[in-house]
């Protein structure tokens, strides 16, 4: 019997190890698995490489994880965030490494990682500083940059509904990076606002099939990052 449900976020992230690469879903607060991130802060793994589109806001969620000093490298497209000093302070003081990747290249690199594709060519960033040091090649008269697939040891993903097989559906634009990150990690850990019986999710409408998911934790009323930030909350 397949049952990927675990009772707590703490148990779900218990084996994240020092030095692990961790993909974290979300675009801003939409889709950010804030309870899993907080559990990871409590868990204490350090020297992490984190992959996320942004760098968090305020001092909760991803920003709190960065502030904890346990992230040595961030792979990211847009780390500039209104209202958070955490990343700028770390970056300017040289306490975190940044790999800046255009957003479409980032999502495609993650998809490639999950799809067993080690490298591909993209027109994005040709002629810009972000192609520096990368192999370029001309196809049909146009120049392209070679980019590599990206995989991770763990992915932390938020969805709206899941079943015990790990089939997932998402809420609106909270879908964003979740489905591709789920494919690219050795261990994909999901927080679902609701866990439903097997067979409830429409097979035609499942977004992430269970094959990509390792663990599911129910978090019935996930916190909203913007609300915590507005209230000045600092985690832990």
């Amino acid at each position, binding site marked *: 019997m397949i049952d990927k449900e675990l009772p707590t976020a703490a148990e779900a992230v218990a084996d994240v190890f020092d030095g692990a690469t961790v993909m974290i879903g979300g*675009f*801003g*607060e*939409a*889709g950010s698995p804030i309870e899993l991130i907080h559990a990871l802060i409590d868990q204490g793994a350090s020297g992490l490489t984190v992959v996320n*589109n942004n760098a968090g806001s305020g001092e909760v969620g991803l920003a709190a994880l960065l502030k904890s000093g346990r992230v040595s490298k961030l792979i990211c*497209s*847009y*780390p*500039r965030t209104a209202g958070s000093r955490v*990343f*700028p302070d770390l*970056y*300017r003081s040289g306490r975190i490494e*940044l790999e*800046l*990747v*255009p*957003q*479409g*290249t980032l*999502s*495609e690199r*993650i*998809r490639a990682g999950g799809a067993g594709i080690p490298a591909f060519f*993209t*027109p*994005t*960033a*040709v*002629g*810009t*500083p*972000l192609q520096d040091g990368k192999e370029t090649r001309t196809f049909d008269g146009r120049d392209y940059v070679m980019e590599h697939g990206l995989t991770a040891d763990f992915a932390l993903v938020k969805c709206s509904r899941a079943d015990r097989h790990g089939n997932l559906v*998402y*809420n*609106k*634009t*909270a*879908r*964003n*990076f*979740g*489905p*591709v990150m789920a494919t690219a990690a050795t261990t994909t850990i999901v927080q679902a606002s609701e866990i439903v019986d097997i067979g409830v999710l429409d097979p035609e409408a499942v*977004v992430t099939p269970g094959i990509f998911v390792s663990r599911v934790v129910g978090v019935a009323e996930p916190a*909203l990052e*913007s609300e915590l930030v507005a209230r000045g909350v600092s985690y832990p």
Partner: protein
Amino acid sequence: MAKRAAFDIPDGAYVNLGIGIPELVAKYVPEGREVVYHTENGLLGMGPSPADGEGDPELINAGKRQITAVPGASYFHHADSFVMIRGGHIDICVLGAMQVSETGDLANWSTGSPDAIPAVGGAMDLVAGANAIRVVTQHCTRDGQPKLVEACSYPLTGAGVVKRVYTDLAVVDISGDGFQLVELAPGIDFEHVRDLTAAELRPLPN
């Protein structure tokens, strides 16, 4: 200028609007045209901001502001969203600019200052992939420096990508041959625009 840019968006177009002034374009598209707005964080069929208290913090645009979805909308994940962009399926992308060169180079993501936090988002993908890149921007910076230049001094977002620029003073096309004036804003004369353009600006044909 957002209004002028909106006038050039045809019925049935699939359009991505950059953060800031370009977002205003949607408000000015003439009545009777059905335009489908794409936001790279995973929605085709973006509608206006929600009424107070009716928003969903997980229904946002690329600028991370709450939006709505119109009938006929669809959600998708990030890789699929950039299939639309990189694959040439977006008809028009309207972006802001820090500098545009006379060969169509665009700089809009970084001043190159060593102190700045580098952040690129989806701008490089958009300029590489969308079929027509149009820029909406003030003609000059806040301190009066021309944004239309011979060559960008800031790091590029993309090379040779911009086809048309809408400013507060004029509409300017970029042809193989540099900046070509298309239209002057009401009350603006050619000499004024030329003086505030740091590259040759060809006047309207007689």
